[in-house]
C-alpha cells in the first residue's frame, strides 16, 4: 500500500493512513468546502481543527480512550493522530449476539458518562465514531462538533443523537441498545443527574417531532 492512502472521504474531512516518524498515523485533513462562503468555511475548519484535539486530550484525562494527537497544523487545517487498528461499532453491532451487543453498549454508555461527568460533549455520537481495537478497548473519535460544558441541554442533545443514530442505523435493536447505554451511563453519573438528563431528552423530543401527543385525533 502506497502511503499516504485515502481511507475515508468523510463529510468534513478526508482521512489518510500515513507514516509519520516511523509510526502508522491518521492524517485528518479538513479540506475547503466549495459550497459555503470562503470566510465562513475557513472559520469553521480552523475552529474545529483547534478544538477537536483539545477535546480529545480532555477526554483522555476523563478516562475515555481517544487516539493520541501528534501534530496540529492549523494553517493546513490538518491533525495527525495515532492510528487505531480495529472495527467500527457500526459494523460490529449487527453481526454480534445479543449479550455481546449489550456489553458493548453498556461500555459505550460508561464512556459517554465519563465524558459528560468531565464536562465534555462529544457532539456527534454515532456508531461510526466508535472503534473497538483488537484488545476490546473502545475508542471515541471525531470530536469536531464537540464542546466543553456541564449544562443539561447539550448533554441531553448528545444522548438524544446517540438514540437517533441507533434508531436510524440499528433499528432492529435500537431500544435494547439505548437502554444498555443508559445503564452504563448511570454507573458513572449520580441518580439525580441521570434522571434530570433523561427528563431533558423527553423535553427535546417534544420540541421536535418525535412524540405523537394525541394518537387518536378524530373529531370532525
Amino acid at each position, binding site marked *: 500500500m502506497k502511503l499516504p492512502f485515502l481511507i*475515508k*472521504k*468523510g*463529510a*468534513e474531512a478526508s482521512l489518510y493512513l500515513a507514516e509519520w516518524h516511523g509510526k502508522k498515523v491518521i492524517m485528518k485533513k479538513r479540506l475547503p*468546502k*466549495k*459550497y*459555503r*462562503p470562503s*470566510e*465562513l468555511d475557513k*472559520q*469553521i475548519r480552523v475552529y474545529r481543527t483547534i478544538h477537536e484535539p483539545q477535546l480529545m486530550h480532555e477526554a483522555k484525562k476523563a478516562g475515555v480512550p481517544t487516539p493520541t494527537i501528534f501534530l496540529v497544523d492549523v494553517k493546513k487545517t490538518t491533525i495527525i493522530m495515532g492510528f487505531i487498528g480495529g472495527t467500527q461499532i457500526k459494523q460490529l453491532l449487527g453481526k454480534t449476539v445479543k449479550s455481546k451487543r449489550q456489553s458493548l453498549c453498556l461500555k459505550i454508555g460508561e464512556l459517554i458518562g465519563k465524558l459528560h461527568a468531565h464536562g465534555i460533549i462529544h*457532539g*456527534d*455520537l*454515532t456508531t*461510526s465514531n466508535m472503534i473497538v481495537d483488537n484488545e476490546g478497548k473502545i475508542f471515541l473519535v471525531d470530536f469536531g*462538533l464537540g464542546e466543553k460544558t456541564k449544562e443539561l441541554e447539550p448533554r441531553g*442533545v448528545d444522548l438524544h*443523537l446517540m438514540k*437517533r*443514530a441507533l*434508531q*436510524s*442505523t440499528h*433499528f432492529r435493536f435500537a431500544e435494547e441498545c439505548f437502554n444498555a447505554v443508559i445503564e452504563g451511563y448511570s454507573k458513572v453519573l449520580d441518580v439525580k443527574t441521570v434522571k434530570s438528563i433523561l427528563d431533558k431528552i423527553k423535553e*427535546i423530543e417534544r*420540541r*421536535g*417531532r*418525535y*412524540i*405523537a*401527543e*394525541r*394518537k*387518536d*385525533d*378524530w*373529531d*370532525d
Partner: protein
Amino acid sequence: MKRENAGGFYCLGIESTADDFSVGVATFGGKILANVINAYMPEEGGIHPREAARHHAEVAGKVLEEAFTKTGIKPESLSIIAFSQGPGLGPCLRTGATVARALSSYLNVPLVGVNHCVAHIEIGKMKTRAGDPITLYVSGGNTIVSAFDSGRYRVFGETLDIALGNCLDVFAREAGLRQKVGMPFGAVVEKLAAKGKKLVPLPYTVKGMNTSFSGLLTATVNLLKKREHTLEDLSYSLQETAFSMVTEVTERALAHTEKKEVLLTGGVAANKRLQSMIRAIAEEHNVRFCVVPSEFAIDNGAMIAWTGVLAYKYAMVTPIDKSFVKLKWRLEEVEIPWIK
C-alpha cells in the same frame, strides 16, 4: 376494484397539511394530469390553523372543479381518493380529510391516507427518476435528511426545533416583507439575498446530522432590529449560514450511508442557491444530483395522488374509521412496501 375495469386508472390526491389546499390527479402509470394549488395568504402574521382551514373549506369546491376541468375526466372515473393524513396542522388536515371521505363514500372508491413527508420524497423520485437517494426534504414545516433502508425511510438527521422554511418565513415577516401568489416569502428572501455582499457572522448550529435554526433566527432578527446591516446583507447571511448547515448534514449523511444519489425536495428546494450547494456536494462525492421541479416542490395534491397510487398497489387502503388525521405522524413510522 370495480373501477379498474372502467378504462383509465386515476387517483385523486388532496393536500391540506398547512397553508395550501391542492388537488392533483395521477394515473396508475405515474402521469400527472392535474395539480391545482390554492394558497392561503394571511394579510399579516403566520398561518393561523383555523383561518387556513376556513380558507381550505371555502376553496375546496373550486379547486376540485378546476382539477376535473383540467383532466377532462369525470369524478365517476376515479379509482382511488388519496389524502394527506399527516403530519400537519389539525384543522387544515381535517378539512382535507373531510373532503376526501365525502368523495370516497359518494363515489364508492377506496380511500388512501398518505404521509405528507413520504409524498414529498416519492414525487421527487418519480420526477427525477432517482432510485435510492439520500433525501434532503426542506419546507416550512420539515427539515429531514433521510434514506430508505429495510422497508422504511429512516431519518438520519432533522431539525431539533423549527424548520428551515419556517426560519426564512419568520425572518421575512419580521423584516416587514410581503408575499404574494407565485412569490412566497422564501422567494422574496432569495431575491434580496442575491443582492447581499457582506457575510454577517451568525450562529452556525450543527449537531451531528441534525440542525437547529431557532438561535440563528433570533440572532438574525435581533440584528435586523439594530439596523446596522442592510436587509440584503442579512438575507444573504441568513441564507448562506442556514443552507451551509443543511448542506453539511446532508453531506455527513451521504458519507455515512454511501448512497449514489442526492435528492432535494420540499418547498425550499426551489431555492437556486440551496440547489447549487447540494449540487456541489453531489459533485464532490461523485453522486447524482436530483432536484424536484418547482411545481412539485411546494405542497401539492399531485404528490399525494402519486403516493396514493403506490400505496394502493400494495393494498394500503384506509377504512373510514381509521382515517383520523395524524398531526405528528413521523416519516419512519410508515411502511414502504413498494421499494425492494
